[in-house]
């Protein structure tokens, strides 16, 4: 009897998805849908938060006040994006503290791109241009995701990301039209961030375990390889227009398919970084853990203050 009920509920649920009716927090949803969303949204939130670290690294060393104000605003946006997303995960019943503890214990993942170091100022350009560019490519389709709170958070995020990408492109463009040393610096940043940016779209479709079900549930609207191809197609002409060379000897315009063919991605590197062995994995997670531990007394003091004041009010 109960099984019959569940399969009926599942049918109603899938019908809603097929009709493009959004699912809202209190609606019935299959357990696996809920779990899958919690996994994806919390990973996304972690990526925003960990993503503050490589750029935060350069705030005090930005070349002038304008760049510093911009970078500060951008990093603050990333914090905001993390908060929208943690809230969205909470609407599914995820416990925020536990979600964050999973990041700190290494159980939860975040975007592998943030495990690469930011060695020069040009990296701020490369991150805005390529990393935020790739993120936009990923996030725009998520604005139509079947889960209402996630879709709404993504609409907000996408509005803000476009400033991120443009400021990054401005940074790299300025360097590219500067002295020889500055141009080399820009090229070097592109060389280091190009392949990791392509890896941001995740494993190729043949190896992506979640894609098929996520597409059926409209959590995901495009496959990893589709989005990666779109990114390559829009980004290569941008690099050319500012006189930088994409570090891929196999890159070639395919007249017939009307898109770029590009060289093989080093998936060993990808899985190494995802598995915790990237250049900065330990540093990033340690920094987040330290932030939580060092800030713990503030969280407790604020709560104690609020409780004390409430007690006075009711007394």
């Amino acid at each position, binding site marked *: 009897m109960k099984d019959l009920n569940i399969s009926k509920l599942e049918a109603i649920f899938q019908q809603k998805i097929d009709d493009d009716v959004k699912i809202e927090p209190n609606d019935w949803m299959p357990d696996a849908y809920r779990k899958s969303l919690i996994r994806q949204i919390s990973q996304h939130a972690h990526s925003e938060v960990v993503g503050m670290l490589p750029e935060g690294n350069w705030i005090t060393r930005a070349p002038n006040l304008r760049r510093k104000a911009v970078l500060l605003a951008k990093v603050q946006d990333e914090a905001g994006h993390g908060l929208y997303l943690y*809230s969205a995960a909470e609407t599914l019943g995820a416990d925020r503290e536990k979600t964050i503890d999973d990041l700190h214990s290494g159980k939860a993942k975040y975007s592998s791109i943030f495990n690469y170091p930011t060695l020069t100022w040009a990296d701020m350009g490369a991150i805005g241009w390529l990393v935020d560019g790739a993120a936009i490519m990923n996030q725009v389709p998520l604005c139509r995701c079947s889960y209402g709170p996630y879709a709404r958070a993504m609409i907000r995020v996408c509005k803000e990301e476009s400033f991120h990408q443009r400021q990054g492109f401005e940074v790299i463009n300025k360097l590219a039209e500067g002295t020889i040393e500055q141009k080399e610096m820009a090229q070097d940043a592109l060389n280091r961030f190009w392949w990791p940016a392509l890896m941001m779209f995740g494993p190729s479709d043949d190896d992506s375990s979640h894609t098929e079900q996520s597409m059926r549930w409209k959590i995901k609207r495009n496959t990893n390889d589709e989005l990666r191809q779109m990114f390559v197609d829009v980004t290569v002409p941008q690099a050319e227009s500012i006189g930088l060379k994409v570090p891929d000897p196999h890159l070639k315009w395919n007249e017939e398919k009307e898109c770029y063919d590009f060289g093989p991605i080093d998936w060993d590197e990808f899985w190494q970084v995802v598995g915790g062995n990237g250049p900065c994995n330990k540093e990033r997670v340690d920094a987040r853990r330290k932030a939580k531990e060092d800030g713990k007394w503030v969280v407790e003091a604020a709560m104690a203050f609020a409780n004390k004041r*409430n007690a006075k009010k009711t007394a």
Partner: protein
Amino acid sequence: MSESKGWPLWEVFVRSKQGLNHKHVGSLRASDATMAIKNARDVYTRRAEGISIWVVPSNNITASDPSEEDSLFEPSQTKVYRHPTFYDVPDGISHM
């Protein structure tokens, strides 16, 4: 639906400009209402999205049950005569 040990959850409503109603924009955690307003300012109005903020403890919100959607809202769907287009008005009649 476990509760975090940290700060309580607040729902945030923002009035985008004078003359419009406050609209739900999301939620956040804060130790008290004053902090919730401050955090909402930073999280939800970084680009002049609002001129007024309401915060409400999430557990003070009572929501209708989605499984009662039919019994709650069906009556308003079947009363088409509540809409002006239900009525026949002869051609040539204006200002109506």
